[in-house]
């Protein structure tokens, strides 16, 4: 019985799911319920027979079986059919039906239930509910039409073959069909809807609803009593429609559950009264009366079930919509989003509450493009206006980052996304959008940027410290030359032997050396000053030459030779020159350090540049010890250093600079030594109108 422990439908099924592994008693329970219900249904069916007519007006057992099949998993259908059989047998034999006929009828009844249930279960996903128009439509067609329609052929054939009764084949077919169709419409939805979640539903509804339900039931009973008992059989037949308002009330206010219950009430009262000779369906022969009742009830119940389904569906849709709106507004609040719409046709506008708070708009202030623009920082206003205008003209979404200047003087950073919607005629009808307050993120980014710059600056200062002696030498060269020339000049003058041509050369040298000293100082100052300046198109070959000049003395002092293979006509890269100098300086100093233990003849560095697929690749190759063999990437981690007094920040800074420029830094072991390389994207032509 373990196989039963599988998802079933609805409330009943969920109880089926648990307790895996234990002996599942629920199929037995279900079988017991089906047995009892089938037996009871058969009894009711016999009771609702209009004497002397032999066929019941409403035959419930088939519908009860169908409801059970719809609710239960397919795997235990055979259990249910097996349980229904003794009930069928008992009830029919008690009514003195011959055993062959009893058996045949069970076959035809089971066929009907199986046909309907199979088709419905095939088309409707579990759990089967009649709260959607599609489901009710499918149910009406298969359960109230196709199942009875097909099985009635079998049923009528059995009756004729067994010579049970005196009606002809088509008579029997017709009676069976309408009787079972009515039963399916009346009972199956009631059982399915109420047994699945009915009890839980009752627990959920509030007291005023109970009161309303009581009133409805009272009204329905009174009207039905009046119509089916008190009215004279000859009364106006339009009075038959008196219960209709109550039925609609049930459908509108209580959905498919209310509607099925109300239909059931109506059905039983109508048949009962006719069976006892009261009301409008008691005037003609039993057969005719039965048909009239059936047609009346079928016509009443089908639209009512559909109506209830439509109403419930719409209600659910509204709930879903509300939930979605709530979810969106929750998301908007938690993400500091401002949603807004401007409807040009209806001249309406809406903005979420936190949106109004961000923009500091008043609660009911109507929105307009002009109002938005008035809040935008004056420097960003034109760009914003242009972006919106472009989006309007091209029917595209605009996205723009801008500053907001609030009336209280506070500046906030925002990203707005918006779109123009067009109506059927292609005219702009609505502007919808969302704005995100990114001030916090922006400030954090700024902070991070400052920290990065601070670190880079510290590293540059420390590099300069390391290079101080070499730089002093570098600077002393022109100063020595100047001093020598000046002293020589004075001596020549004192000796009164000034050759003018020689003096001219001498002074030209002095001037050139003074300039050279100035350039060196300027270069150092640029390199160590705090602000990094701005990005501009730069030529990497130029940067390399500048750095080599800074390092010239150091390279000499450490007996390291540098070869360059610089690609001619190298495209420019968009970069901050100081940053790139720092990258090269750090890489070169690393290379120099890496070769300190090598003999002087082997200490050489090869710097090359080349252009490669829209980027400029610079490589610095040394002939030192190479990268750590076990984990070459370790060199890029913070505070990792092979130098005894190294901070381990050099390559971290190099990487952060290269990546901030949209490039990539890599390192690999060469035949002897290591090769570091970084790529930087080739500068593109500035795009028009940079958005602030």
């Amino acid at each position, binding site marked *: 019985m373990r196989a039963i422990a599988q998802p079933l439908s609805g409330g009943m099924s969920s109880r089926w799911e648990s307790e895996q592994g234990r002996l599942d008693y629920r199929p037995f329970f279900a079988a017991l319920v089906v047995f009892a219900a089938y037996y009871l249904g058969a009894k009711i069916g016999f009771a609702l027979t209009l004497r002397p007519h032999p066929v019941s007006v409403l035959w419930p057992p088939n519908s009860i079986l169908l409801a059970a099949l719809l609710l239960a998993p397919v795997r235990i259908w055979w259990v249910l059919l097996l349980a229904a059989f003794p009930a069928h047998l008992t009830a029919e034999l008690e009514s003195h039906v011959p055993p062959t006929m009893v058996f045949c009828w069970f076959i035809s009844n089971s066929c009907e239930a199986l046909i309907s249930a199979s088709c419905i279960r095939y088309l409707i996903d579990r759990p089967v509910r009649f709260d959607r128009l599609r489901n009710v439509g499918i149910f009406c067609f298969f359960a109230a039409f196709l199942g009875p329609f097909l099985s009635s052929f079998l049923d009528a054939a059995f009756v004729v073959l067994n010579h049970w009764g005196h009606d002809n084949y088509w008579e029997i077919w017709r009676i069976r069909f309408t009787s079972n169709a009515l039963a399916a419409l009346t009972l199956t939805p009631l059982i399915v809807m109420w047994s699945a979640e009915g009890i839980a539903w009752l627990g959920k509804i509030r007291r005023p609803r109970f009161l309303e339900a009581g009133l409805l039931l009272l009204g329905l009973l009174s009207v039905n009593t009046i119509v089916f008992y008190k009215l004279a059989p000859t009364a106006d037949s339009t009075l038959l429609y008196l219960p209709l308002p109550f039925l609609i009330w049930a459908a509108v206010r209580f959905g498919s559950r209310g509607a099925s219950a109300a239909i059931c009430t109506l059905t039983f009262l109508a048949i009962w009264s006719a069976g006892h000779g009261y009301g409008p369906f008691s005037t003609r022969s039993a057969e005719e009366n039965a048909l009239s009742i059936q047609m009346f009830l079928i016509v009443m119940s089908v639209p009512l079930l559909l109506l209830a389904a439509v109403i419930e569906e719409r209600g659910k849709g509204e709930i879903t919509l509300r939930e979605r709106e709530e979810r969106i507004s929750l998301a908007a609040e938690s993400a500091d989003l401002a949603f807004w719409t401007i409807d040009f046709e209806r001249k309406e506008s809406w903005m979420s509450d936190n949106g109004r708070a961000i923009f500091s708009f008043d609660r009911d202030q109507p929105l307009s493009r002009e109002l938005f623009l008035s809040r935008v920082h004056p420097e960003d206003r034109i760009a914003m206006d242009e972006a919106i205008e472009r989006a309007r003209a091209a029917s595209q979404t605009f996205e723009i980052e801008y500053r907001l200047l609030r009336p209280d003087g506070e500046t906030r950073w925002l990203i707005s996304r918006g779109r123009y919607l067009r109506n059927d005629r292609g005219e702009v009808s609505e502007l919808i959008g969302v704005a995100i307050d990114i001030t916090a993120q922006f400030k954090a980014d700024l902070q991070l940027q400052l920290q990065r710059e601070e670190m880079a600056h510290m590293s540059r200062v420390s590099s300069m410290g390391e290079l101080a002696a070499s730089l002093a030498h570098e600077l002393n060269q022109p100063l020595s030359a100047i001093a020598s020339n000046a002293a020589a000049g004075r001596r020549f003058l004192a000796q009164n032997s000034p050759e003018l041509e020689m003096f001219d050369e001498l002074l030209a040298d002095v001037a050139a050396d003074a300039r050279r000293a100035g350039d060196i100082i300027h270069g150092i100052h640029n390199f160590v000053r705090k602000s990094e300046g701005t990005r501009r198109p730069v030529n990497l070959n130029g940067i390399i030459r500048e750095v080599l000049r800074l390092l010239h003395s150091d390279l000499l002092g450490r007996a390291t*030779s540098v070869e360059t293979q610089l690609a001619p006509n190298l495209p420019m890269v968009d970069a901050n020159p100081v940053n790139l100098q720092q990258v090269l300086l750090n890489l070169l100093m690393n290379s120099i350090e890496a070769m300190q233990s090598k003999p002087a003849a082997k200490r050489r560095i090869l710097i090359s540049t080349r252009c490669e697929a829209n980027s400029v690749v610079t490589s610095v190759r040394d002939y030192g010890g190479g990268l750590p063999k076990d984990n070459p990437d370790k060199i890029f981690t913070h505070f990792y250093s092979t130098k005894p007094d190294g901070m381990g920040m050099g390559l971290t800074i190099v990487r952060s600079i290269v990546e901030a420029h949209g490039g990539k830094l890599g390192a690999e072991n060469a035949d002897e030594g290591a090769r570091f390389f970084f790529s930087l994207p080739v500068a593109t032509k500035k795009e028009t109108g940079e958005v602030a």
Partner: protein
Amino acid sequence: MSSARELVCAVDDDPSVRRGLRRLFKSAGFAAETFASAEDYLTREIFQGPICLVLDVRMPGLKGPGLQEALEKRGACEQIVFLTGHGDVPTATRAMKKGAVDFLIKPFDSGELIEAVNRALGRSKEQLRKREQRREARGRVDRLTPREFEVLRFVVMGLLNKQIAAELHTAEKTIKVHRGRVMQKLGVTSVADLVRISQRAGVSPARNPA
């Protein structure tokens, strides 16, 4: 102070510094030449007169002990003045130990440099003079016969003729004749001069008598 037979050579990889130094030395009346590297300088023919070499410590190529060795092999008598961009003590000490005349920090005072160059040239001249004297003394000593040379070595020891005769198992008279010839050949009149010239020529005294 200066003479045409003196030369100042400056070696620096920086052309501008080279030009400045050449002018400075010329203004001070020196004959000056400049070279971009020590290797360049070594290709120059050996200058026989007093010569001062002004060297930058920080230079590509040959420097330090290697250069010192190469210079000695050539047998010229360069005196070196070092220039450096930064005057760290270890470098200066090393340079001075190797016999540098001076060690100046760039940018140097030109008066100091000229003074140092003069000192270097003076030392170089002195070195040349000593070398000349030694050669001359050697020339005279070379004219002695082996016997005379032996007698000389005992004389520088301070032995009397009688003692020398005993040492050489000969007559005192013979020694006296030899001694007279030695004085005559070396061109001296006193024992003090004889000792001095022997020292210059590097004549070692005979072993001490037991």
